[in-house]
């Protein structure tokens, strides 16, 4: 078995779940710190939410998503929601964090609202591993 895993399969578009098993979004992109003088890049943040996805998709649809996310965001936060990779407790089959959603203030209000009012009431949302 290889000592490393595929970013596409293990991270991108994977369900994010907090330590209370509450699904609240997906990994829409990953921020990397690239070394200046060779060596391994490090993941500095998992990005989630409409803005990160919009920036990834690009084009008219992407710009529309970013504009909507910017409009719905509360004044304090800027840029996409960032999650410290040090909070990741498990990578596969879903990305499980070691903290509760309420302790992630950087996850902006829209994702928080969607988690509580849209994702959680969905049939089967109680066990995201399914």
């Amino acid at each position, binding site marked *: *078995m*290889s*000592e*490393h*895993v*595929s*970013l*596409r*399969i*293990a*991270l*991108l578009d994977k369900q994010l779940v907090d330590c209370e098993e509450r699904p609240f979004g997906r990994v829409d*992109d*990953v*921020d*990397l710190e*690239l*070394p200046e003088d*060779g*060596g*391994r*890049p*490090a*993941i500095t943040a998992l*990005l989630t939410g409409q803005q990160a996805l919009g*920036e*990834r998709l690009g084009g008219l649809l992407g710009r529309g998503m970013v504009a909507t996310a910017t409009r719905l965001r509360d004044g304090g936060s800027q840029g996409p929601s960032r999650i410290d*990779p040090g909070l*990741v407790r498990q*990578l596969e089959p879903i990305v499980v964090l070691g903290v509760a959603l309420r302790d992630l203030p950087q996850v902006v209000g829209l994702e928080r609202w969607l988690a509580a009012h849209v994702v959680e009431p969905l049939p089967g949302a109680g066990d995201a591993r399914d």
Partner: protein
Amino acid sequence: MRATELLGTEVVDDAGRSLGPVRDLRVVPDTLEVAGLVVGNGPFAAIAHRWGYAEGRARGPWVLRGIAAHVSRDARFVPADEVLDWRAVPIRITCAAADLPHLRDVLAR
């Protein structure tokens, strides 16, 4: 830099020969460092990598698995240490294509 910006970027070897675009990044689960890149050519290789067939991870019709295994047979793993400049386009590496291990051999280790 976003990881998805790296995906699709062309990679060239030390002689300037194209190895194809970046199809995937390999990540060390414990440290979340990037161990290297997966590169490969071919019109259907992108789908094979995107859907997990190139890794042998996706289940599905044997026809699809067979086609995906065929189109991704030349995929190679580029260790991060061999990358000369991550920000350059195309991304340059320090060795020849023939010196890089095949992805299927890396996955079998």
